[in-house]
């Protein structure tokens, strides 16, 4: 009964979406306020039905109802409760249901908190959202129904893929989807603006909180996925330039560009046409990401061709939305008016520079990810495009961007003074130069890139702090007064500083990990030790253990530094009987911002065991930096101008307005 209820709720959501996709739009065109008023309550109702549908599937998983095919394929009654819940989106059908759930949440949020939007614009936005929702409901119902039943209910499920039985699955996909799907709001606003044929600075202010929210989630989602891969896959890497990772990186790059260009639009009424295009591209890239991951096209062009139902459907969605929105853009964008002027060296100029390099980086990832697929489909020729290609192309594109980052906030609007900005960055440049020199002196000329990585990272970090120091007049007025000024600064200024600071920290972590990371591989017998940097790891022996749905062999290592015991590390290998699979559980020991990392290979007949030990200095900064960036986003989201909402319709009503978030 419960799965049927969930299925039926999804059908009803589809019906509501079709209604919402047409009626408010017609109302907005005709100026019929009754039809316009329908949009918000229907959006909320749509959310309630999708939530009901999702809860129904979750209930099937929690109760281990193996008569539902999806539950049977991906769950096991012995799994801990948390994994039975996360299994809901650990598979294709369930993850698509999560996708539409989040889409409907965003729709309901716009409906509930968009009180300061012009009614017609809001109705049009909700209609466009509903077109997206309707196609995805249709996709789930026709090709990926999670509620299908089995005729003879099995007694036990096939278990969730052991690698996915991790807390990472609870956090990473929902965050990433919140980011992907969050891009749909900016997209809907862009399409609505094109339909209405007018756009102004207020548009940028309305869209900004949604884009920020999506960006925060994408940033955290990508960082979380990276950390998860790092500790779970057992070979110590944190970014593989895998097509699936690229699929999440592209929307991130586009959203980052969008956030920056929307600032220009909001403050200076310029770059409107470009900002609209970026909003369309950001969501298009999210859809392409969904297509890449969900259609099976990545495994092989041929697999895709042999079972094309899902792939073709998603491809049709892509063509419809990307093609449709770009066509609408080509038709309507020339009618939009351009805004204010600015000189090349100005805040606008710096933000445009940012956009140029971010979009080029995004295009590089796009071509690198899709070119092998296109080449194989067209000529049958197979080539590989992997990490070495992206490191050689993406890396150089980011260097000028990073050099420019500290300059941006220091340049004035309209016409800035590059020399004055450079003078104010003297400290940052000095710290960067000292870092380069110090690294050369202490570490030698090998590895080559290390000094420059350190120098650039510290330049970005100190540069971000310089902006705050300048604005608070720190070191020029008494500290207490500067502190007061700091509290009085707009939160978005703090947000910028934190986001840029986080970027510098990420670079610091990347430099440390790639340039000074070391690795030892050895076969150890009990009692033997392995030395890495200044750490000695003694292999004490192995211990067999049992978990709820697996058996594991843990190896015990005593870690010493300078003869003193500083801890125990226990990497293990787990065997999951249901799928007869083995996973490697690495052991991590955090020292400052660096980590020791131990992962196990196979035991040999003579009692020895293969071991891989890494020392990764500064590695934690990669993810901490991302968190600092997200904190910057959150600070910016709490900025007064976004809380109060915009624009003020009238003096007297300002107090009664709803927050924009």
């Amino acid at each position, binding site marked *: 009964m419960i799965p049927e209820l969930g299925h039926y709720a999804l059908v009803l959501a589809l019906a509501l979406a079709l209604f919402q996709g047409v009626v408010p739009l017609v109302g907005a065109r005709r100026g019929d306020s009754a039809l316009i008023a329908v949009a918000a309550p229907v959006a909320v109702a749509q959310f309630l039905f999708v939530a009901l549908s999702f809860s129904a599937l979750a209930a099937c998983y929690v109760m281990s109802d193996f008569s539902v095919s999806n539950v049977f394929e991906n769950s096991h009654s012995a799994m801990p409760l948390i994994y039975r819940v996360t299994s809901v989106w650990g598979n294709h059908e369930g993850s698509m249901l999560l996708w539409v759930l989040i889409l409907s949440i965003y729709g309901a949020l716009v409906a509930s908190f968009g009180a300061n939007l012009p009614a017609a614009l809001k109705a049009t936005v909700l209609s466009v959202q509903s077109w997206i929702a309707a196609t995805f409901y249709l996709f789930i119902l026709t090709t990926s129904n999670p509620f299908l039943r089995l005729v003879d209910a099995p007694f036990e499920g096939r278990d969730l893929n052991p690698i996915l039985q991790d807390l990472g699955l609870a956090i990473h996909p929902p965050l990433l989807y919140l980011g992907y799907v969050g891009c749909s709001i900016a997209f809907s606003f862009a399409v609505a603006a094109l339909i209405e044929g007018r756009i102004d600075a207020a548009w940028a202010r309305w869209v900004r909180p949604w884009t920020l929210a999506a960006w925060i989630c994408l940033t955290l989602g990508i960082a979380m996925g990276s950390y998860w891969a790092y500790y779970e896959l057992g070979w110590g890497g944190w970014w593989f330039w895998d097509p699936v990772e690229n699929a999440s990186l592209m929307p991130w790059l586009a959203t980052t560009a969008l956030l920056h260009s929307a600032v220009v639009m909001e403050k200076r009424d*310029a770059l409107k046409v470009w900002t609209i295009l970026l909003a369309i591209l950001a969501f298009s890239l999210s859809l392409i990401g969904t297509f890449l991951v969900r259609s099976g096209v990545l495994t092989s062009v041929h697999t895709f061709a042999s079972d094309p139902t899902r792939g073709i459907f998603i491809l049709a969605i892509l063509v419809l939305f990307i093609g449709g929105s770009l066509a609408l853009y080509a038709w309507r964008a020339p009618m939009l008016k351009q805004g204010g002027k600015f000189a090349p060296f100005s805040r606008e100029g710096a933000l445009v520079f940012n956009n140029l390099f971010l979009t080029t980086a995004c295009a590089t990832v796009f071509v690198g990810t899709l070119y092998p697929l296109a080449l194989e489909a067209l000529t049958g020729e197979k080539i590989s495009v992997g990490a*070495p290609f992206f490191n050689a192309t993406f890396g150089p594109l980011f260097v000028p961007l990073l050099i420019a980052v500290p300059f941006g906030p220091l340049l004035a609007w309209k016409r800035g003074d590059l020399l004055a900005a450079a003078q104010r960055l003297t400290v940052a440049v000095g710290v960067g130069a000292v870092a380069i020199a110090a690294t050369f002196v202490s570490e030698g000329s090998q590895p080559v890139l290390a000094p420059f990585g350190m120098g650039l990272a510290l330049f970005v970090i100190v540069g971000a702090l310089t902006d705050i120091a300048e604005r608070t007049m720190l070191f020029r007025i008494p500290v207490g007064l500067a502190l007061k000024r700091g509290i009085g600064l707009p939160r978005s200024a703090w947000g910028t500083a934190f986001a840029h600071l986080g970027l510098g920290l990420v670079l610091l972590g990347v430099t440390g990990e790639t340039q000074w990371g070391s690795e030892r591989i050895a076969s150890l017998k009990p009692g033997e030790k392995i030395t890495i940097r200044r750490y000695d790891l003694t292999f004490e022996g192995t211990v067999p253990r049992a978990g709820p749905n697996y058996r594991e062999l843990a190896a015990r290592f005593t870690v010493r530094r300078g003869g003193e015991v500083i801890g125990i590390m226990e990497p293990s290998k787990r065997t999951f009987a249901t799928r007869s699979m*083995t996973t490697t559980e690495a052991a991590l020991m955090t020292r400052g911002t660096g980590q020791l990392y131990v992962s196990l290979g196979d035991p040999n007949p003579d009692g020895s065991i293969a071991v*891989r030990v890494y020392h990764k200095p500064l590695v934690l900064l990669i993810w901490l930096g991302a968190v600092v960036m997200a904190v910057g986003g959150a600070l910016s989201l709490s900025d007064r101008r976004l809380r109060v909402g915009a624009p003020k319709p009238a003096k007297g009503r300002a107090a009664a307005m709803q927050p924009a978030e």
Partner: protein
Amino acid sequence: MRRIALALACVVSLTAPALAVQPDEVLHDPALEARARTLSRELRCMVCQNQSIDDSDAPLARDLRILVRERLKAGDSDGQVMDFLVARYGEFVLLKPRFEWHTAILWLAPPVVLALGAIALFAFLRRGGGGPQPGPNADLTAAEKKRVAELLKADRG
């Protein structure tokens, strides 16, 4: 999550995945071993999803790693090792494709996009950064102008 699921495609057939680089593969000469590792990172494990032979647990990757080390021990240069592998397994084995006519779009895309973007930007700034400044009331509709007038009046009053 999905990357992890894909990485599985490589491991799933094995009941007991091993470490990527086995202790017995490691060469005694550290300089030679370092070269072998660098080369391994540029070579694809062909039965895996986007994994280098340096990362992969698959038996094929192990065979390739041993092959690379044998060629290096025999005195091959890095380029010769790569040529040997491409001759044997095709260009698919390279994670960084060579610049040839069929990979020209791939390699030229970043500089071309950057150059086109820079040219468009230059033209945009030459025109005065966003075209002529609109008149003070150019964007306002009649209703908005009326509202502005009302507000101004209210301010004065």
